[in-house]
């Protein structure tokens, strides 16, 4: 967590010459991908409706479904743990590692573990955790957080990655050419293969928890999740309570909208389904644990932002967000970025500290338009603004201005007086500045910082319209 606020981080990001082209590539790649996936699949809209209904039903039945999941997972040989918050989840994971003599763990990409800062906790316990998703591996080497939910290193160029590998991989011969993507992937693969073969435990997240059989479902494109979950002798999965669905049928519907919305693939390259633990003589981990993470989700379920729990973390809202396209993910300052982050981060990290996030939106509504489960993200952001206003968080000037506008608008003569004065003021300013207002000392002069303002040509419409009643 950085000490700067959103505006400063956004300012830094927008002045990062390398970031803008990366974000432009990201936007065009993902937007085109989704549009093409939708276009070649006529049932997509219908399937979105079904997925939206399934996810809402899953959240409505969440406590019961989680109990069914627990019973079925336990019966299949998995150990189920419940964590109320980040600290408890980290403590459970660390205890399981300690009890089993784990020194080195491999990890697949998991936002839940990002959310609870698991790697840092394990490091304090003397346990090394190595990310095996390529993007996550790169940002782990750089000590950064993911800047995009499905493409965590999207902010970096291949030159940045080469530089990172040169700094981190001491045995990399200086003469070896790693300028191209394939060479970078090969270099990472050598390191990661060694980690896969030597790790004592594998830590994953979960894309869905299927209640009827106690199954964990995971999707990936790199194949690293299969290896992370099954190569070491011990598997620990960490999943938010919201990942629950009732049945395989439900999971199938959600899967069919997930990759299409995320990357524009019809289906991710790998779908890994794990039930129970390996028996004597079977391949796979002998011990399998799942930590079910609440961390504010139950409270959210009881609030007017409950629909956010339907989110399947595809990232379509980021990919289509004009704010994200301008600032990138790090400006949001939390685990999640984009519209989903603007809804989730105030929940996880506090509204007062993150009051900018729900405000930094024009309510353009594109996120809601592309959300595979039709979450009304602008309305959820609006609810945060209402909470912030009720808590007196907006600056005093803004609150007074709104109060004055409300007061003026309640009696028409006051509104007319205000517009009359404003009209006169703007026309005088325009006259003074020779026809075009280039500087207007209102709201910090922010409107006219980058725009000219044409003063009104005459008095207000209402004052000139004849026969008003």
């Amino acid at each position, binding site marked *: 967590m950085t000490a700067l606020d959103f*505006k400063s981080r*956004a*300012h830094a990001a*927008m002045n990062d010459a390398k970031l803008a082209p990366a974000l432009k590539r990201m936007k065009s790649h993902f937007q085109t991908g989704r549009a093409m996936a939708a276009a070649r699949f006529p049932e997509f809209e219908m399937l979105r409706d079904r997925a939206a209904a399934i996810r809402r039903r899953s959240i409505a039945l969440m406590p019961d479904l989680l109990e069914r999941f627990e019973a079925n997972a336990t019966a299949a040989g998995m150990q189920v743990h419940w964590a109320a918050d980040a600290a408890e989840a980290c403590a459970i994971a660390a205890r399981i590692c300690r009890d089993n003599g784990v020194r080195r763990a491999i990890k697949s990409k998991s936002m839940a573990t990002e959310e609870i800062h698991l790697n840092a906790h394990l490091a304090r316990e003397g346990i090394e955790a190595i990310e095996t998703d390529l993007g996550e591996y790169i940002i782990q080497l750089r000590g950064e957080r993911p800047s995009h939910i499905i493409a965590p290193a999207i902010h970096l160029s291949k030159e940045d990655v080469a530089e990172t590998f040169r700094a981190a991989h001491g045995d990399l011969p200086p003469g070896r050419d790693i300028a191209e993507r394939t060479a970078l992937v090969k270099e990472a693969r050598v390191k990661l293969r060694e980690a896969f073969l030597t790790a004592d435990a594998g830590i994953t997240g979960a894309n869905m928890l299927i209640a009827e059989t106690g199954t964990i479902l995971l999707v990936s494109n790199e194949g690293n999740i299969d290896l992370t979950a099954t190569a070491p002798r011990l598997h620990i999965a960490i999943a938010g309570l919201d990942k629950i669905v009732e049945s395989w049928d439900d999971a199938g519907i959600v899967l069919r909208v997930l990759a299409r919305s995320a990357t524009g693939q019809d289906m991710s390259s790998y779908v890994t389904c794990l039930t129970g633990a390996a028996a004597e003589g079977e391949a796979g981990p002998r011990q399998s644990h799942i930590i079910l993470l609440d961390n504010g989700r139950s409270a959210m379920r009881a609030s007017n932002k409950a629909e956010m729990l339907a989110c399947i973390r595809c990232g379509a809202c980021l990919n289509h967000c*004009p704010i994200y396209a*301008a*600032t990138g993910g790090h400006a949001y300052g939390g685990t999640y970025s984009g519209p989903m982050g603007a809804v989730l981060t105030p929940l996880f990290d506090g509204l007062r500290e993150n009051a900018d996030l729900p*405000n*930094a*939106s*024009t*309510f*353009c*509504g*594109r996120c*809601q338009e592309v959300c595979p489960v039709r979450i009304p993200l602008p309305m959820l952001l*609006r609810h945060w*603004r*209402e*909470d*912030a*206003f*009720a808590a007196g968080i*907006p600056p005093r000037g803004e*609150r007074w201005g*709104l109060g004055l*506008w*409300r007061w*003026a*608008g*309640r009696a*028409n003569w006051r*509104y*007319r007086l205000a*517009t009359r004065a*404003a*009209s006169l003021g*703007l026309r005088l300013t325009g006259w003074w500045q020779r026809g*075009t207002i*280039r500087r207007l000392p209102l*709201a*910090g002069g*922010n*409107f*006219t*910082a*980058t*725009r*000219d*303002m*044409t003063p*009104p*040509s*005459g*008095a207000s*419409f*209402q004052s000139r*319209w004849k026969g*008003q*009643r």
Partner: protein
Amino acid sequence: MSQPEAALFVTCLADLMRPEVGFAAASLIQRAGFTVVVPRQGCCGQPNYNAGDKAGARDLAKAAIAALERFEIVVVPSGSCGGMIAKHYPHLFEADDPWRPRAERLASRTLELTQFLARHPLPDGPKAPAGKIAYHDSCSARRELGVLAEPRALIAAHTDAEIVPIADAESCCGFGGTFCVKYPEISARMASEKTAAIAATGAGMLVAADLGCLLNLGGTLKRQGSPIAIKHIAELLAGEP
């Protein structure tokens, strides 16, 4: 037989910043066969609503409802303010609030200008000269109200304009009400990307149905020294110079 009445809700921005839009809208409503009434009116309450001040928005909405509810049709030359009334007003009041049915009735009678003109067509007349224009859809018209075909059909029917498509047309222009002064740097970035896309069309004029977008984009274009003029669709259709 007397003509039916339609109320014009002119919006604060048109009322104050560009009164010509109000007069043009009134003349179009008249030409569509209605008697225009302009009841005394203020703001729809969107600035308060978008800032999280729901109680303030409710107060302003009540004033607007009281002013407009006696009319069968209310016309708004803005997707943003039109969407506020037609889509958001009912949500301002609890289900058992006596204002709820009044808000719902007004919502069902409120039309954005191009929606209104699509339902109540203008008589055929000489086509206004316009040349090559770029048409920008406001996010509220496009996504809240689903208005996309109406303005294009009106422009094709009543002007000689050639509408050239703007690349990445679905992206927001960065106005967003108070967003443009709260987050000026992000807003300016969004606006300049939009004006670059507009300039690339080769159009001589930018037309939109929302003054918020037009003041943002027109102001940015002018600051950039661009010769591209802006016009509200009401002014274009009314044949104003």
